């Protein structure tokens, strides 16, 4: 498997950006496109900052001023003076950037269809409904909601309203401890696997949690006693990219490459995390690989574009994906392609702000509280 090529996984046979990208931007020649992006950046100068998520493809990230995970990028956005923040990531990330930047800054998502299905698995109205049901069987003060930053701003707002906080994959343990100091139970949204892995790190087991399936008619599919007994209520949501890694992938990789270090993201299923050597957030994965011995070998269980980048940037090590390219390609991230980036930038040059993400003011204020509580932990 080549490590430097960008995986070409255009599984849709037809142009699938109906209406959202003007015709003149499709099918541009790569050199011309790169040149025009550069021209637009030169023209806009300090007016614009381009942020690229770790999971973006290289043809996009080559234009980014900063690379990172969603929270690092939001901080970059907040620190930036630029009136325009072009966020090459998915909707909830651009929302977070809008929440933390000041009102004079506009956050632009090159394609409005870059939306994370996991965030979509926990919509505020669903969680509101679940909260009402839940607190009709246990006192509200016993439950502390915790929401992964990979969620829509409206859910972060609801979480803050109910006394909870956000967390990331790198600080989930601390936030869980904070929450358990304040209440007896945690309602975690939207990623059941991250919660599962975190509670295990804290010494809890599968006996301590139940899954809350919002699509089941009563109490998320649980009996009242089960809810009362559980310490953790895990929302039935997951990242469809990380969910695809299996224990079998780990085993076959080890058979082929006995000295390999298997490192996976905590959004993977519990058994995969257990089978792996290390688990960690994207920044932890990057640090591990960068500081590793030359000649060492690394199988990475996260989105393929980060793996490809690590392989490119660490030519002295053998870095590859834990499963085939197409099984770990995030389609939502893929929605941002360089054509969309060019369209957003050239529109700015013409004074047109397209695809601006604007979080409702009230939601933004509350979401910021949930994020701030996380930083305060």
């Amino acid at each position, binding site marked *: 498997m080549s490590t430097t090529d960008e995986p070409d996984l255009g*599984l849709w046979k037809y142009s699938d950006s109906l*209406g*959202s990208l003007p015709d003149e931007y499709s099918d541009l020649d790569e050199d011309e496109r790169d040149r025009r992006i550069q021209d637009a950046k030169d023209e806009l100068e300090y007016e614009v900052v381009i942020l690229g998520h770790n999971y973006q493809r290289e043809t996009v990230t080559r234009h980014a001023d900063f690379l990172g995970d969603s929270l690092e990028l939001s901080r970059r956005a907040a620190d930036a003076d630029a009136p325009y923040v072009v966020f090459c990531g998915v909707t909830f990330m651009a929302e977070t950037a809008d929440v933390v930047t000041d009102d004079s800054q506009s956050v632009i998502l090159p394609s409005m*269809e870059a939306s994370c*299905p996991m965030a979509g698995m926990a919509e505020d109205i669903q969680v509101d409904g679940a909260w009402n049901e839940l607190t009709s069987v246990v006192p509200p003060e016993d439950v502390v909601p915790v929401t992964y930053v990979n969620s829509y701003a409206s859910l972060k707002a609801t979480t803050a309203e109910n006394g909870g906080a956000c967390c990331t994959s790198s600080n989930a343990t601390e936030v869980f401890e904070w929450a358990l100091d304040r209440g007896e139970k945690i309602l975690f949204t939207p990623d059941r696997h991250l919660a599962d892995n975190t509670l295990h790190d804290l010494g809890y087991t599968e006996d301590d949690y139940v899954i809350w399936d919002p*699509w089941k008619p009563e109490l998320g599919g649980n009996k009242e006693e089960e809810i009362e007994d559980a310490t953790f209520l895990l929302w039935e949501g997951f990242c*469809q990219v990380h969910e*695809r890694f299996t224990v079998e992938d780990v085993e076959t990789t080890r058979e082929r490459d006995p000295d390999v270090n298997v490192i996976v993201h905590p959004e993977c299923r519990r058994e995969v995390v257990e089978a792996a050597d290390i688990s960690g957030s994207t920044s932890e994965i990057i640090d591990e690989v960068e500081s590793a011995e030359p000649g060492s070998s690394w199988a990475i269980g996260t989105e393929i574009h980060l793996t490809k980048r690590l392989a490119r940037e660490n030519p002295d090590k053998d870095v590859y994906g834990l499963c085939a390219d197409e099984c770990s390609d995030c*389609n*939502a991230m893929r929605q941002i392609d360089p054509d969309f980036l060019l369209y957003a930038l050239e529109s700015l040059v013409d004074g047109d702000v397209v695809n601006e993400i604007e979080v409702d003011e009230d939601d933004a204020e509350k979401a910021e509280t949930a994020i701030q509580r996380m930083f305060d932990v």
Partner: protein
Amino acid sequence: MSKTLEEYDVVVVGSGVAGCTAALKATETAEVAVVTKASKPEDSTTQWAQGGVATVAPEEDPGEFVEDVVEASAGEADRDRVELLVEEGSTAVEEFLVEEVGVEFDRADDGFHRTREGGHSHDRVIHRGDATGEAVHLALLDSLDRSTVDVYEDHTVIDIQEGGGVVAVDENEEPIYLASAATVLATGGIGDVYGRSTNPPGTTGDGVAMAALAGAEVKDMEYVQFHPTVHAERGFLLSEALRGEGALVVDEDGDRFLPSYHEDAELAPRDVVANAIYERSFDGDVYLDINPVMEGLDFVEAFPTAAENLTEEEMESGLVPVSPAEHFICGGVKVDDRGRTTVDGLYAAGETACTGVHGANRLASTSLLEGLVWGLRTGETAASEADDPRRPAEVDAFNGEMPEGFVDSKFTRLQETMWRNVGLQRSEEGLEKARQQLQRLRGEVRSYARGRVDSGLYELRNAVLVGLLVTEAALENEESRGCHVRVEA
């Protein structure tokens, strides 16, 4: 993975009036298959048509019918196409439907029994009791059974491919592949995009979405007709003929309010009535008072279908809760006078197609007719233009996990967004909001549809795309016309 691969000259998607007609015509000269997700007649909208089929009345000049259609369309209809509809309509009914297919319409001494409906200047509508759709549809299905056409029931087409070929999934969600040279989309309307609809469940706009994804032009998508009086709880249609026979629209206090909207009150054009009830329904329930009808005639005899659908209590009080509901989409996949879309080898007919005869609003009892006339033309054209069948490529499927209720809950979200913001009255602000929400939804859904073969998921993908096409067309067209109503926020 590839199950059976059969080859056909023409694959017709859908078994309503348009699909059956196209297939019966095409099979005269070509190898034809009908692939339909219907597993029983009730799954197609055609089965539910009540009023009938309008054709030129014996005493009138065809030009008068043409004028009525054009007037109903708010001047937006394509006059040449309307002339074609009117001219060929009578022969299509008499030679095809009656003689070949054997539909028995109600007769009067001197020919068909004809009734009049709103917007018609003559008694034109031929019918079979108040269940005309059923009579037409069952006869068509029967002819199809006796023909050489291969029928794949309970098979949902999830993908049509450039240059030919369709991918369907059977009742066990197993993919099957059909090679075709010509593909005719006759998938009907878009009811599930709104949820509140007169169409049967499963009407998800598949044909429009799949055609758009294949690069075909769509047209007039903002012109969505809402039926003014549908049972608010059980979704069936309360025929406009009821109002014709004296039924009144009243609010919770039993007071009429339509007179303040239009001089013709209960007999005002259907979009006026629908908008009035839509507005009122935010203040409380609205009822259809059928007491005046029951006083004048034998209700059960005159309206057997309605009588059967109403509860005893409703029959006694004469008060039936009503709401508007999505009824018909005037726009759709743009076709020419022979049913060709803008993509080679791809054809469309029936409600899925935009032939140009409805413009901004549809005249009552002209859609079965349109399905018939364009069904015949499209079937003939597709058969004559079909060259070599092409194999479809296999679809990718990792079939990763998806939460069980995902599709249902996203449908609910789509429908709420559409009803509130892209319903009977549309503001720029509401439309913008809907667009954002739908784009987000489309992204979420697509992430799944990429790796899973699942008919519900593909239907959701289609419905969301159709919702977006309606929303964008509605945003672009700032002028209220026909059934597209723009308002200030």
